[in-house]
């Protein structure tokens, strides 16, 4: 068997087109790795800058506070960081940072259209959850050539180019008859051909995944990263296996090489273009993106309404914070009133926000279902999820963010109502932001249906495909 494969390799490696195709593939992989590395590099630099800025700002506030207490320095009251309302609205505000995903350099995914940091203040989320990175919209429109794209779109073409004429080519060149006239099981010859190509495909899948990971400088000593990388490579292998079995299946149809190329190209179009288009259309029609424009007008109306009923707003606020008000003076404090108004507006908005989030969540769940329409979409979802550039990790971030924002507001509202003054110790005791990655169970549960479907498809197409090919290869 080894010798037959060696011969097959000898035949294959003299095909100039093979090397050309491989070179293009590797070139794209290299470009994609470089582009991913640059993207995450820029992200990390921006995050480092934010962290430095935050540390310096908090340190300078902490240094200023005793001086203000001692009266050696004075600032206008609207800049006094000891005032909870001032500190919470900006001076002491912390950055809620979404670090690049574990395999971020391999897939940019949705990361280029989602904010990755926000300075959490006591104000309403709509005012600060808006930090889009600057990017030429024409580039966002063109899409990114990242490693995930190369795997999703280009890798299948490579698999098909390598496999479309395993049998038809030999039949058309006439060599099949001569091979079959030899005293050897046709299955062994076929096995050598298919096996060698399978090895090549698997090798390329692994090379692209691991190679890109190493080239982009992923921390391959980190266990989490390595686990994710193994899962990622597994998905890529499975995707390769899917295309490989489709190719076997079509090869067994005894078509001419040109016809089988056209058939496989049709399959590629179906899986990579047509089915995803239908899935996307289905998602858009059944779960349209909820309108932020509508949300904006609602927020404005809620704010106006709260301002009109200022007294009601403040009264409700007091009832909501029983015992927290230390003295009646707090109520005439314009900063407290502002918080009360904001609270009233948020209360009106709560059902709207909930509806908006529910619509987004429903849309994401629907997307997970419709993904199953196409193996390419299944793999896209898995790759984005594993690299951490999909919508789920972002949603996970947003939920942690909301909880953090809630905690931040509560702690400052309480201090404000108690008319507390912040000192360096209370500054240090403020809630800290840390992002917790999704656990493997959640991630695995989300990936499982797609991966199982893919596995099922590989078996359902590959096994009969191989059997039929085995039969087809017995006749010249």
């Amino acid at each position, binding site marked *: 068997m080894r010798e037959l494969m060696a011969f097959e390799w000898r035949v294959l490696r003299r095909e100039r087109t093979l090397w050309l195709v491989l070179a293009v593939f590797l070139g794209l992989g290299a470009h994609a790795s470089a582009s991913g590395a640059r993207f995450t590099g820029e992200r990390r630099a921006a995050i480092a800058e934010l962290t430095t800025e935050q540390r310096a700002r908090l340190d300078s506030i902490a240094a200023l506070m005793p001086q203000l207490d001692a009266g050696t320095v004075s600032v206008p009251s609207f800049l006094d960081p000891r005032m909870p309302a001032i500190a919470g609205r900006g001076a002491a505000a912390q950055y809620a940072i979404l670090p690049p995903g574990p395999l971020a350099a391999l897939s940019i995914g949705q990361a280029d259209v989602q904010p990755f940091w926000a300075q959490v203040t006591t104000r309403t989320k709509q005012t600060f959850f808006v930090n889009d990175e600057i990017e030429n919209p024409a580039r966002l429109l063109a899409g990114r050539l990242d490693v995930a794209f190369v795997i999703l779109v280009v890798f299948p073409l490579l698999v098909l180019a390598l496999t479309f004429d395993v049998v038809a080519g030999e039949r058309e060149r006439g060599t099949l008859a*001569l091979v*079959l006239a030899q005293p050897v099981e046709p299955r062994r010859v076929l096995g050598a051909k298919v096996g060698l190509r399978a090895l090549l495909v698997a090798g390329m899948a692994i090379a692209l995944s691991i190679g890109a990971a190493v080239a982009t400088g992923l921390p391959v000593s980190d266990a989490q990263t390595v686990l994710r990388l193994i899962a990622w490579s597994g998905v890529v292998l499975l995707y390769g296996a899917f295309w490989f079995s489709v190719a076997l299946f079509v090869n067994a149809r005894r078509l001419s090489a040109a016809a089988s190329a056209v058939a496989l190209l049709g399959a590629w179009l179906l899986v990579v273009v047509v089915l995803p288009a239908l899935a996307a259309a289905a998602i858009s029609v059944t779960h349209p993106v909820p309108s932020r424009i509508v949300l904006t007008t609602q927020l404005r109306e809620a704010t106006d309404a709260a301002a009109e009923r200022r007294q009601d707003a403040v009264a409700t606020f007091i009832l909501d914070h029983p015992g927290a008000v230390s003295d009646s003076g707090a109520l005439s404090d314009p900063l407290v009133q502002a918080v009360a108004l904001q609270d009233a507006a948020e209360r009106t908005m709560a059902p709207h926000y909930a509806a908006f989030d529910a619509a987004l969540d429903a849309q994401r769940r629907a997307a997970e279902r419709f993904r199953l329409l196409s193996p390419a979409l299944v793999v896209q979802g898995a790759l984005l999820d594993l690299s951490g550039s999909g919508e789920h990790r972002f949603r996970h971030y947003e939920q942690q963010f909301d909880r953090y924002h809630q905690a931040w507001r509560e702690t400052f509202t309480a201090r404000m109502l108690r008319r507390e003054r912040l000192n360096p110790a209370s500054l240090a005791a403020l809630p800290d932001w840390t992002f917790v990655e999704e656990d493997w169970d959640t991630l695995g549960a989300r990936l499982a249906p797609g991966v199982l479907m893919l596995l099922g498809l590989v078996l359902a197409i590959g096994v009969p495909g191989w059997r039929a090919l085995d039969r087809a290869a017995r006749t010249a």
Partner: protein
Amino acid sequence: MTTATASPLLEAHGLTKRYGDTLALDTLHLSVGAGEVYCLLGANGAGKSTTISCFLDFVRPDAGSAMIGGTVVAQDPIGTKRRLAYIPETVMLYGNLSALENLEYFATLATGGRPVRAELAQHLRTAGLTDAQLEQRVGGFSKGMRQKVGIAIALAKGADVLLLDEPTSGLDPKASNEFHRLLGLMRDRGAAVLMATHDLFRAKESGTRIGIMKAGRKVAELRADEIGHADLEQLYLTHMHD
């Protein structure tokens, strides 16, 4: 000229093959012994290629059996293929490999072991290729040169049964002549040869026996040395007309 031995190497017993409504082979009997060259004549579609395909197990007969060295092909296709060599009208090879590399591949397939290169080269030389041609890629080889590689495959396997499907059609007279010289060589080494051909002249010259086929049936069989060229042509045409 050697005569046929008692136990034939190639035997067809009532071979019958049906494709839909068409009867491609109709209870065909024939046998070819060692040192014999059996030529099958007949129009296109008469069943010559189907007969050869039955011996190669490319086609399974609906009834009857094809036997090589006393073994039924359908029962042991691999075993019977060890003894035979097949040369189609055009010997198609891997264009990007040299003649020697092609032979190496097929010899490996044929013997299961790693053949010795020097021996393979010798076979190619015996078949009539020059030393320079051994290392050339066969992509640019002429039909005649390819046929020589085919013969070399037969030599490398030590095949004692040769199945030839119109091997000389389209060859120029010189190449054709050379091929028949090689055929003579194989015959003299004791091979049994079954050759489908349109070439009445060559059939008469190289053949020991000649069978004429029509619509899947053998309509005539005669010894080559018992008939003249003109008579053979006359006989052939007579059978084609009625």
